[in-house]
């Protein structure tokens, strides 16, 4: 197989001034690449709902207006995509998973969560990595409504894991007693996905 270093192709950059903030093998971007696995769903807001079900005592669901009334937090975080880009200081507003779980009685066996989205996308996250402010459902990016190509009306954001865990177009969380793999985790990607440990592929 031919092998060549392309003359003058620097690839992407790891500027020294932010080097410490970039996980291993990641490169800095300043734009916001659009990544996707399917068409934009365009669910009208009057038919949108957010649901928590699975291993819970009784499932709960919020309509869009109800969801908007939940208390929100604004955070600024760095995000890292497994396709090797990292974007620093992204500003989100959304509802933390802690807030969503208030009043939900989770079965003690339900230690794992499958986030599910419009269009059929899924991703698995252990419950203990969503609580204590680690995960939230965001509907504003940079003080503006989250654009559809970035997952609007609402997406999950779990900044300490690779960004495929931050499911676009999220519609709910399903509690499970096993860490079942989601869309990418079931096809070669790491079940956990910590960028600082470079958990990209299964077996890493």
């Amino acid at each position, binding site marked *: *197989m031919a*092998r*060549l270093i*392309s*003359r*003058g*192709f620097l*690839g992407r950059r790891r500027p020294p001034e932010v080097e410490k903030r970039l996980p291993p093998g990641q490169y800095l971007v300043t734009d916001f690449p659009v990544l996707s696995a399917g068409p934009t769903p365009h669910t009208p807001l009057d038919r949108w709902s957010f649901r928590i079900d699975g291993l819970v005592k009784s499932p709960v669901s919020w309509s869009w207006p109800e969801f908007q009334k939940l208390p929100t937090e604004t955070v600024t975080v760095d995000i890292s995509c497994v396709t090797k880009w990292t974007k620093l200081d992204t500003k989100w507003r959304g509802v933390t998973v802690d807030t969503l779980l208030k009043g939900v009685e989770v079965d003690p066996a339900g230690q794992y969560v499958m986030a599910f989205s419009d269009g059929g996308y899924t991703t698995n996250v252990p419950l203990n990595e969503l609580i204590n402010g680690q995960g939230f459902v965001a509907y504003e990016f940079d003080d503006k409504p989250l654009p559809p190509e970035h997952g609007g009306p609402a997406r999950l954001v779990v900044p300490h894991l690779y960004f495929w865990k931050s499911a676009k177009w999220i519609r709910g969380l399903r509690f499970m007693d096993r860490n079942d793999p989601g869309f990418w985790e079931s096809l070669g990607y790491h079940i956990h996905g910590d960028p600082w440990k470079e958990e990209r592929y299964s077996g890493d």
Partner: protein
Amino acid sequence: MAALEWQLGTVTTIQPETPKTKSFYVALPKWAGHRPGQHIDLRLTAPDGYQTQRSYSIASPPELSGQLELTVDLIQDGEVSPYLHDVVMQGDQLELRGPVGGYFVWDVTVGGPLLLVGGGSGVVPLMAMLRHRAAQHSTIPARLLYSCRTPDDVIYRDELNQLAGSVAGLEVLITFTRQAPAGWTGYQRRIDAAMLNEVITPFGTSARTYVCGPTLLVESVANLLVGMGLPADRVHTERFGPTGS
């Protein structure tokens, strides 16, 4: 059958086509030939091992042997096209594999009448078909409907004029979507049903159509053609992404 292999080519000539597009002639000692409409995958490797890959259609006809012509539109903020435009020089090596694709292919054995619809750099694989048709002295009736933003954006303008004037049975129709040349009497709008209807009328629904370019253009043209009664298997499509939109 031999697996598709990455091979090294040498850039022999770089030719500006428009302010935003350049053609790259790449000499390939191991090239096994291609069919009009096929593309190659190009791979770039950085010193730290980082790699990235893009597809580019082959502009040259199979009759041009030993080298390929690739024509690349510059995407501002892109990763690969600015590298090709601003860094690559004559004599540089490029790593590529191909030819790939068997579906978006037309040669004279496929027959006609032939309707080609392209937008922006989507004209590249269609040009390989027209060059092949000319090289074969084919008289299969052919029409190219080519959507460009402005007169500056017409890739292969002189060659298209020359082909249209010298080759039997070929008509080239350009539509300008943003700004037409002074005194232009041709189309000046996005491709729509009325335009397609006029262009296809001499051929009717027996036309073999090849539609290529920005995804949204291909999507809408293909839907219109099928809506006009063309069998879906005669409407060949290839989507480039957001190019030129």
